[in-house]
């Protein structure tokens, strides 16, 4: 049975999406405004974008963000996949322990986790910078990779693994030749999500940044606190374009995988 969507329903849904995207579109629109104030529209310009590339702090923090995000995505892909695959063989008790560990970082309020890591790294004298950023970001990225890979593993027909074993494959051969190829698309999608989450993080990064290694969001936040300037609009718009490029890539890998099957 299919319930018919009423006119009111369709209207409500459309209204919701307008409100959901209006703030985003406003930011993009005003990045092209010649006037530095949102009070009036004085014409189209690309000056604010040009100004971005001249700002050394922005360029530097962008570099830090990209490096951290790439390393985080890589580390999360490895750790998350390993956790999910290993979970297939361990005892039920250990499986529960892994699951618990994976959910833990997602359940602790982010700011509390940030403070906790700050205090911890401080007391073991770990210098704040790339390493602390990657370690902390991977905490909230690994669980997503784990969850996505695990969902895919559940879909795999167990009899395929058994026949591989019957044909004499070792556990490692089963993982390498059967499991990994099947979960690769999930790993890629999850890593891209990790990349985007790392690039976007404000709260934990606030506490993990070193004196010379500020991430872009932390810098943008400090710019926003001063007030509305079109330069921030331009920067946000560029980041949006970058992220959508990543989303596009992940959709593409999904599609290709479907066609391959």
């Amino acid at each position, binding site marked *: *049975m299919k*319930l018919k*969507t009423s006119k009111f*329903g*369709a209207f*409500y849904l459309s209204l*919701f*999406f307008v409100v*959901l*995207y*209006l*703030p*985003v579109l*406003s*930011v993009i629109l*005003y990045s092209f405004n010649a006037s530095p104030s*949102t*009070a009036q529209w004085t014409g189209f310009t690309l000056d604010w974008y040009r100004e971005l590339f001249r700002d050394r702090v922005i360029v530097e923090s962008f570099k830090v963000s990209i490096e951290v995000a790439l390393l985080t995505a890589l580390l999360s892909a490895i*750790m998350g996949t390993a*956790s999910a695959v*290993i979970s297939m*063989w*361990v*005892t039920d008790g*250990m499986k529960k*322990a*892994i699951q618990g*560990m*994976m*959910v*833990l970082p997602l*359940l*602790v*309020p982010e*700011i*509390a*986790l940030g*403070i*906790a*890591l700050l*205090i*911890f790294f401080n007391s073991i004298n770990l210098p704040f910078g790339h390493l602390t950023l990657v*370690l*902390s970001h991977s*905490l909230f990225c690994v669980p997503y990779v784990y*969850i996505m890979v695990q969902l895919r593993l559940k879909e795999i027909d167990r009899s395929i693994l058994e026949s591989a074993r019957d044909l004499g494959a070792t556990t490692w051969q089963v993982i390498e030749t059967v499991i990994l190829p099947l979960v690769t698309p999930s790993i890629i999608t999850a890593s891209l999500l990790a990349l985007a989450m790392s690039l*976007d993080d*404000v*709260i934990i990064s*606030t*506490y993990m940044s070193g004196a010379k290694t500020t991430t872009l*969001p932390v810098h943008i936040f400090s710019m*926003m*606190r001063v007030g*509305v300037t079109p330069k921030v*609009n331009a920067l*946000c718009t560029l980041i*949006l374009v970058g*992220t959508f490029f990543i*989303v596009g890539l992940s959709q593409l890998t999904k599609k290709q995988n479907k066609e391959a099957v």
Partner: protein
Amino acid sequence: MQTLKRNILAVPIVVWIGLLVGVPLLFVFVLSFLSRDSLGNIVVQFTLENYQRVFDPIYLRVFLNSLLLALLTGILTLVVGYPVAYITSNLEPKKRALSIGLIMLPFWISSLLRTYGWMILLGNAGIINNVLRALGVIDAPLSMMYKFSTTLIGTAYMLVPFMIVAIFNSVDKLDRSLLEASYDLGANKRQTFFNITLPLTIPGIAGGFTLVFIPALGLFYVSDLLGGGNTIFLGNLINTQVTRGRNRPLAAAFSMAMIVVAILVISLYGRVAKDDREGLFQ
């Protein structure tokens, strides 16, 4: 021996996350009972003063502000999000996929950008004021920024996709034949919704509430940018104490209080959604 061999590879993973989450949380716990000297350096001396200060009327106010914000965010996202999830699950396949895509897309959009968008819309020289003035509805700009309600709108806006996804999963799993049976027995749409659909989607609602409530306690950048510090929330307080106030033991005590609230909410969720445990992060 066999068990040991099976489990050995999993040990590094559990230890690794345990070391990066469990041990730091233990540090916060210990720190919350320590003192500090006048320079802000931590002194190893047991005290309950930090916890006493949590119940100091000034700080208690901050705590209640945050609880109220998180609660109202939960209610607002539920009221706004439930119909979105419900309508989407009943759409025809193509429109449904589009709707799901539009609901998920904000997860990929920078949260700072989404907060900043509200600054541009609601500011005194913002878009809404400009439009209203151009239409002659108002003469002087409406003051919409830096209020409790501004922070509430921003926080709810940030978290509403979580609520929708949680409810959607629940509504979508609903056995449609139950609804059909309800109609066959003469119930109208309204009765069917309140007697069948709503009770069966309670686990989804509880899951969404949990996913919204906990982050709402600590999104300090939203209250900083949209609330302008007029109402102080837990997140802002902890952030200020760590970055500027240099009173880390107090920040640790507040973090512990926040974690306790989070644990309470999660255990409440566990009770409501007994058989739907996996649902929270799927």
